[in-house]
């Protein structure tokens, strides 16, 4: 039996405020295709007396933690966090999907969930003359993240970003092989213990290196540093100012430090990553960067900004298939992008990049549309 103390659970997570309006489920991208129903789960917890059984609730692993539910809730209930907490209860009992287990173990051993060696983490930057933060210090720490460190497309984004920042004269450094996973996905998968350990380790390191300002490639890293680290005891020492790189670029553009000599003459549509948009309200900065690039014609999809459709890559879903792998949200999203007539589908998140890329291939649309990161597009116009 996988019981949770439902009354305490509901109280601690503010679920009693739920008015059962269904806005969460109405907007939930997963409710379209799986059994996941955030409202109904809350309702079941509320009526469960004092014990709610999580056994067999596989749909809990469908949640992409896109936060649509929370952003729509009129009563400030957070179904997403409730789902993550239910995952924690399952993980605590050791009932973890084998893929998840591997990812978590790899995060613990290698500092990344990708099962790739720690000593290869800094390879992408070998020939780039990037400062080693630990040795020379710098104004900014460039926290690269796991996917941009190891994934080929991700590496391109990281390199593009380096060239942009170097041309704008930003003083930054990286941690190289000493960089450790931010643990955002660990938290979303419900592995609280590992998350706390990783937070403590990272916070300690940042403190030792006197990191005052930092930026990330991934909105997921950005979000966990900005919103989660300081809320737990293990991260109490973490106090650096965190930015997403699109915020940096937008500021550099405004200040005139970043200049484009070339152009990028294409129709571009922009997909808002959940962890940048819905989680953190960053809608305008990526668009400011895109429209600042000579030649870019920005076209909006109908579902943009607050309504952006999740690509299904968050919440640990890079490692868990979910209960309906047949229909992919990323494919829906690419279709929406195709409808606009855009030649490029831009985004600003390594996970979105991977899922959308794959969807383009799946739809045989490589001829019609390319998936590129905002940094890649900008770097091409330097």
């Amino acid at each position: 039996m996988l019981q949770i103390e439902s009354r305490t659970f509901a109280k601690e997570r503010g679920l009693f405020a739920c008015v059962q309006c269904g806005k969460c489920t109405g907007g939930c991208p997963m409710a379209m295709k799986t059994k996941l129903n955030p409202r109904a789960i809350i309702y079941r917890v509320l009526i469960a007396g004092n014990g709610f059984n999580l056994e067999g609730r596989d749909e809990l692993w469908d949640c992409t933690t896109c936060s649509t539910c929370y952003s729509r809730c009129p009563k400030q209930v957070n179904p997403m966090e409730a789902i993550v907490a239910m995952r924690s209860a399952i993980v605590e009992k050791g009932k973890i999907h084998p893929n998840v287990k591997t990812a978590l173990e790899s995060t613990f051993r290698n500092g990344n969930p990708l099962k790739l060696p720690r000593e290869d983490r800094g390879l992408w930057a070998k020939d780039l003359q990037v400062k080693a933060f630990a040795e020379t210090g710098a104004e900014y720490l460039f926290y690269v993240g796991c996917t941009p460190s190891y994934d080929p497309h991700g590496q391109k984004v990281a390199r593009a970003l380096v060239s942009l920042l170097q041309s704008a004269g930003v003083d930054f450094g990286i941690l190289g092989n000493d960089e450790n996973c931010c643990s955002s996905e660990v938290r979303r998968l419900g592995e609280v213990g590992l998350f706390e350990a990783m937070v403590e380790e990272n916070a300690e390191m940042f403190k030792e290196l006197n990191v005052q300002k930092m930026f990330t490639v991934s909105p997921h890293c950005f979000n966990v540093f900005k919103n989660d680290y300081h809320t737990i005891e293990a991260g109490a020492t973490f106090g650096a100012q965190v930015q997403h790189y699109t915020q940096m670029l937008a500021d550099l553009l405004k200040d005139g430090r970043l200049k484009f000599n070339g152009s990028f003459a294409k129709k571009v549509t922009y997909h808002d990553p959940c962890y940048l948009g819905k989680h953190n309200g960053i809608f305008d900065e990526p668009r400011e960067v895109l429209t600042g690039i000579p030649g870019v014609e920005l076209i909006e999809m109908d579902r943009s900004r607050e309504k952006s459709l999740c690509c299904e890559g968050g919440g640990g879903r890079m490692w868990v298939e979910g209960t309906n792998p047949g229909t992919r949200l990323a494919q829906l999203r690419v279709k929406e992008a195709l409808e606009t007539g855009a030649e490029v589908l831009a985004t600003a998140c390594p996970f979105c990049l991977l899922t959308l890329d794959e969807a383009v291939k799946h739809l045989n649309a490589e001829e019609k549309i390319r998936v590129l990161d905002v940094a890649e597009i900008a770097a091409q116009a330097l």
Partner: protein
Amino acid sequence: MTNSPRVGVYICHCGINIAATVDVAAVTEYAARLPNVVLARNYSYMCSDPGQVLIQNDIRELDLNRVVVASCSPRMHEPTFRATIAEVGLNPYCLDMANIREQCSWVHPQGVSTTEKAMQLVASAVAKASRLEPLQTRKVPVTPAVLVIGGGVAGMQAALDLGDAGFDVTIVEHAAQLGGHVAQIYKTFPTLEPTGLMVHELIERVNAHPRIRLMSESEVTDVSGYVGNFNVRVKQNEVTTTIPAGAIIVATGFETFNPHLKPELGYGKYPQVMTTLEFESVIARRSPEGATTKQSPVQGEIASLANERLARNDIKSVVFIQCIGSRDQTIGNPYCSRVCCMVTAKQARLVREQFPDANVTVFYMDVRAFGKGFEEFYDQAREDGVIYRRGNPSEINKRGDRVVVKAEDTLLGEQVEVEADLVVLAVGMRPRSDSEAVAQLLKLSRSADGFFMEAHPKLRPVETSMAGVFLAGCCQSPKDIVDSISQARAAASAAMIPLMRGEVQVDAATSFIDEELCAGCGQCAAVCSFSALTLHPVRGKMTVNSVLCQGCGSCATACPSKAIKVHQSVFEQVMAQMDVISNWRVAPPRPLYRHLFRTGKEARTYWALNTDGDPIAAVRNFLSKVWDRAGLQGMLAPVHRSEHEAGLELITEPARLSRIDPFVPLTAQNAAQMALQLDSAHPYSNYGLALRPCEARALDEVKQRGGFNADFRLTIGVDCMGSFSAEDFEWRVEKAGTVQDLTDQELLHARQGGIAPDRLRLACQMCTSSSAKDTDLQISLIGLPVKETILVSTTDPEIAGRLHLSEITDGLAEPSLVEQHEQMLVTMHERRERALERILHDLAVDLPAEAGAWMSHLANCAPCRKCLEACPIYQADWLPASGYGATAEETMKRWLADCVGCGMCDQACPKHLPLSAIIHRISREVKKSPLLEQV
């Protein structure tokens, strides 16, 4: 009415509101023991008739002159209880309320600390009540006219009622036309009547009314004055006029929620999405009846799309969404707007009626059909074919030339999509964006939701916290037309109350100025929101217009000279309250010492204390045993600070007792005065006080005035043969060697009753009672062989038992020693009487014999008041017991008559006037004076 405060305390149970949480019996028992309290009672409902009669009877029978009611917030019942006590002749301002409900029982769990907080609140109220002064209220005539702000249905209806009642009314409307939001509505619910006709009729009546003046396209820019006599500045076409009004009705209405704040709904992005108000005018245009409906400013694209569709009858699906901007905490509108459910039902029915083929879907969370005929109307909507689906849509997306509403049908538990040609958002009501400005103008409060706040949510729904300003319509909370009209008529009749009375009573709890301190700097006027303070052109001092003053106290805090006080909250009253609370400790169950300051005629038992050649050491030893047996927490006594210095000290460490010297011949400080300070700081600590006879007498006087609580003080009287002033003492210590040597020298003369009096302080020379017989414990040395034996005595067997005097002394004293002691006291008394007569005789050469002249001489001495500050009794007199109903002269006489002759005034006088002698002389005269009979 007597001089000293006689307080009655009434603790209300408020049913179980207070009594279930606070131990009212314990609070009552506690209150009964507070200073100045004559009796304390508790009762189920003090505000009920029997409760009030209880208070009135006590006032009559027990001659109470102050009343404390411990119950609810004074907002509600202060007027009630003021009237109660006024009916039996007490000044209504002699009341104070302790709010033990809102500030205590409602906000704390049941328990000891909650009861203790109630005790604190009561003690604080008693402290204030003891210092309250009677105040006189005033009446002022009223301007028989009303100003109504806002010309919607509420404003118009209120104006019509007031006009019909014969009062002049001015309506100030910011728009060009009357009618407000209702004029934009096509048909009403639940009757489906054309709204236009109804509004039209109201407007016509207003325009035709001889007593109503309409000022359209105008705004209120300033409001001054007070209930009965407001002056309202109204700006119209750049011209500002002042309109006098006895009352003001605020009917400023509402704004609809801005749906742009919910971007997921696509309002402003998709022309298919519109608000209920926009849809109302779109649908009104299709009907001849609707022609009278004022068109709301519908966005061009929405209007053209909707009109085109409607014209083509191309309406297949209409979706209504409820609760847009209502019941939503994320945008700060947690409340229900109350009308949207019915507006939607009405519009849904209109769509079904006009487009029988269209599907009409209403997404709802809960349908609130609470009004008369509402549920039936909702029933009819469903019977007309309107489909109600439970769920609040999450987003609206585009699909071709239609939109698709995405929601969860929560009854199915499924995500659903409904395509629509039109989506109508039932936008809720918001406070107008200028609410804060209006609130500032009129000094209104706003509730958490931003709407104007009524004076009481149940009992005073149309009044505001500002007397004479009333609320009508949606500016107070969301309402439908019926409720707005009802409230408007209620506001009109409430406004008529002061108008028809013709005069209003003005609260007397206003600020007042001490002109001696006022420098006329005007800082008070700068902070006064009521323009109540002006500079007197001749005197150069500020003056308070007590009719304008609302008693808020801002001026008092702004005044750099502390020249402004507010009646009912004067500095001394507030400080007394704060003292009580900051010094409050858990009250012990019963007093430790009850037998103080009695007549001195009770049987006295003497014990002997062998001194073995060192009386000081013997007394130190004895006092440390007393400390242990009595469980003292401290002792106020003279100590040797060093070999050459002595002074009073509160000893809290028993080790310090080895420096004690109760016989040291120094009076630089007064133990009575210090004891009073201890009293307020540590009222329930078990302290011993070593007192000279004059100090003991002073405490007795203060105790009689209610300024000293002896319940937790062990008083130890010590015989005194007279003492020296500080300078004299210093010189003599130097001569003798150490303080110890000087004390020993003086003690050598104990057997003879001390040294020749003319070497002592003036007051000591005249002192005729060298032994303090009214204390708990007495240490005697006069007439005794102090190198061998001194005496310890008490009249209180309980003290003797508790201290185990028979064990800590050397047994009962021999009668011969006692006789020797008492005989010497008589001798000393005679000796000092002669000295006194001589001194007074010498004085009479310089000063006139008639007491009144002496007093005036004293009053003119020099206004430094140092003597008064030094006097232990005067302090008690002018603080806790400053004559209620007594003139300053009477207080002065009472003070002079009770002089205990401690001589502190002599030492304090910078002109070295022989004050103690003068006062003694006056005191004699005053005691003969008939005026004193009143005291």
